[in-house]
């Protein structure tokens, strides 16, 4: 009688455990498979670009007024790779006989495009009214942007301005490439 009584309990426990394990296994396959592709962007690093030519030094005003230039480079978007298309734009200003300052035209606040105003000799973001000085620093303490405009690495080679074009995280006090 005792053996007869224990046998159903043991079999029931094994049955439950097996049902849970197998049920769990079959239930987890689809979500796990989906999650892998869902989280795929986190493992992909941004393309690191080399230097690209954006302008000739002679085309810059001598007085240091910035001019806006498109950055033409290879654009990679998932399966598409397109060469020599605009990937962004920059403001370039002459700072010396053979030196320049290059600022990314994207607002470091929330990613809108910054315009230059000759009347105030400064930059201005139309979306949330951040104002920047001609060197890219924050001009108005009320500006919502947490940091200055992003300066890019640039050099002058044989009278041509070459830039290492990068975008940076928005809304962060720190300049973090993305």
């Amino acid at each position, binding site marked *: 009688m005792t053996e007869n009584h224990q046998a159903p309990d043991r079999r029931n426990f094994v049955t439950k455990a097996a049902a849970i394990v197998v049920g769990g296994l079959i239930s987890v396959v689809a979500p796990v498979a989906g999650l892998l592709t869902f989280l795929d962007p986190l493992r*992909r690093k941004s393309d690191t670009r080399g230097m690209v030519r954006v302008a000739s030094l002679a085309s810059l005003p001598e007085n240091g007024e910035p001019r806006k230039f498109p950055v033409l480079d290879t654009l990679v978007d998932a399966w598409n790779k397109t060469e020599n298309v605009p990937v*962004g734009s920059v403001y370039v200003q002459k700072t010396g006989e053979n030196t320049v300052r290059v600022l990314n035209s994207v607002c470091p606040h929330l990613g809108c495009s910054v*315009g230059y105003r000759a009347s105030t000799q400064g930059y201005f973001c139309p979306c949330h009214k951040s104002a920047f000085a001609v060197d890219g620093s924050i001009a108005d303490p009320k500006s919502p942007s947490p940091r200055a405009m992003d300066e890019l690495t640039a050099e002058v080679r044989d009278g041509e301005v070459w830039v290492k074009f990068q975008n940076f995280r928005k809304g962060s006090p720190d300049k973090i490439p993305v």
Partner: protein
Amino acid sequence: MASERKDGPAGGDSALDKAQEWLDQRTGYKGLLHEVLFENVPGGARWRYVWGSTLSFFFVVQVITGTFLWMSYSPSTQSAWESVYFIQHQMWGGWFLRGIHHFVAQAMTVLLVLHLMQVIIDGAYKAPREVNYWFGVVLLLLILALSLTGYLLPWDQNGYWSTAVSTNIVGLSPGIGAPLQTVVVGGANYGHQTLSRFLALHAGVIPGVIILFIVGHVYLFRRHGITPKQPLKGPDEGFWPEQILKDVVACLAVLLVVLFFVVREHGAPLGAPADPSEQFSAARPEWYFLFLFQLLKYFPGEAEVIGAIVLPTLCLLALAAMPIIGKWRLGHRFNLGFMGVMLAGVALLTWQAVAADRNDVEYQVAKAGAKRDAARAVELANAGVPITGALTLMRDDPYTQGPRIFSRNCASCHRFDGHDGLGNPLPKDSISASDLKGFGSREWVRGFLNADTILTARYWGGTTHAEGDMAMWLADHIPEDEDEVAMRENVVLALSYQARLNSQAALDVRDSSRIASGIAFMRNTSSGCAECHKFQDVGTDSPELTDWGSRDWTIAFVHDPAHQRFFGRDNDRMPSFGTEKSLTPREIEMVVDWLRGEWNTPKTGKATTGN
């Protein structure tokens, strides 16, 4: 059994009755229908009970219209805008379908807020209805998420730039924000994966979750019943047909409002294709998100996370906590007050945002430009879109690119009708070269060949040429008698004729004899233009007048104004845009074509509908 009375006409039940009986025995649908339709409404049917049914109806409308849109929508950066353009402007009834989907989304937001207000005012969040109330709050958030994800899908300028701001706000959240943004956007930049993920969220994930919450919401509602306002005003009534009649009338009223907007706007707005490299100053979210944009302006710099994340989260937490707060003695009054303050705050911020935009000159200019670009994009697309997408058409279009190139490169000295080409005013002290609107036209040349007007700011007033030989010559040769005046006008016609403007072709034919006289004067080497200028095969000096102001002449001039054919050593500050590689040859062509008012106007295979 034989004594049992039979209903219906002699001969037994009708075929329909038998069919219904058969189906009911196998599915029990009559019981379900009875459960749904014959619920008791204590105190009778009331208008204040219509919210749930109205919202459910319009959710179904959105699923239906959304599914049909989905059948024609193509999510990639080279086809999203193009497929939406096709729906809106080419497909039979496409504008109507898209318009319904667009405006019902806005109606649902309004209805949900009103519904939530009614629930709070009636105290219907109190025990035992806490979970149902929370389901309602979640549904409001889900509807807003549908708006956010749907805004990007047309991949137009406004959707692109507004969503860039929205997703960057998500990225502000400490810790999980940046990875979450990367996953939702599908990478660091917006592209194919952004569209496919947003479509999955908008058409699959969020509606699916909404359906789950609606089922839960309705189940709990049936479990707890209606919260009637005491005392009851009348006898109980059935849900069918009394309450349902009120429900469908309310749906009709909302639908009529929606249809009014659909017809008035002729569908939903579609801006120009998204161009990540082109500044867009008119980026604004849907009107019911404007208050969040406005709120950001009060938290500058590193305090931004307060306005973007902390305050909205606190408000949501307070909203969710209302059932708990309501248990206190004055809790219900507090909840009413908090709701009022929050709604007033949202309304005030929204009004501030709208008022600020109305008074923002730069925004108004950008908005007008956006409208112009949108119309042009449709015009170009009507002739067919290449596989590279409509954006490549825009990027190679003089009408679109000309004013931008002018604004960025020429407007530091020149003007176009007093502005920078795009409509933005220019500071006074930057104007030092001629206004180029109408360059090469008779009117322009007439002002140029006048001793007084050539010295104004519209022509050479701000250049060193104001003291040059040309200005001196004009001053020395002011026409005096009738013949001289007539000959000057002939020279105006002849010089303008050199430009070969399409817009003047008919006039040039009409005035061919006067033009011939003018050309003869220009060729005169003793007292005409060729006394100095090289013209055709006579004369020696620059600027050369052969085909002056023509497309080729102007392109070559912009390429290198310091060339010997043009100003040579006398050039006053004008950059050599081609020689210095500031502009590509195509860019120079486009700005010249735009100045000449000459761009392709495609012949359409189908006229665009609406205005």
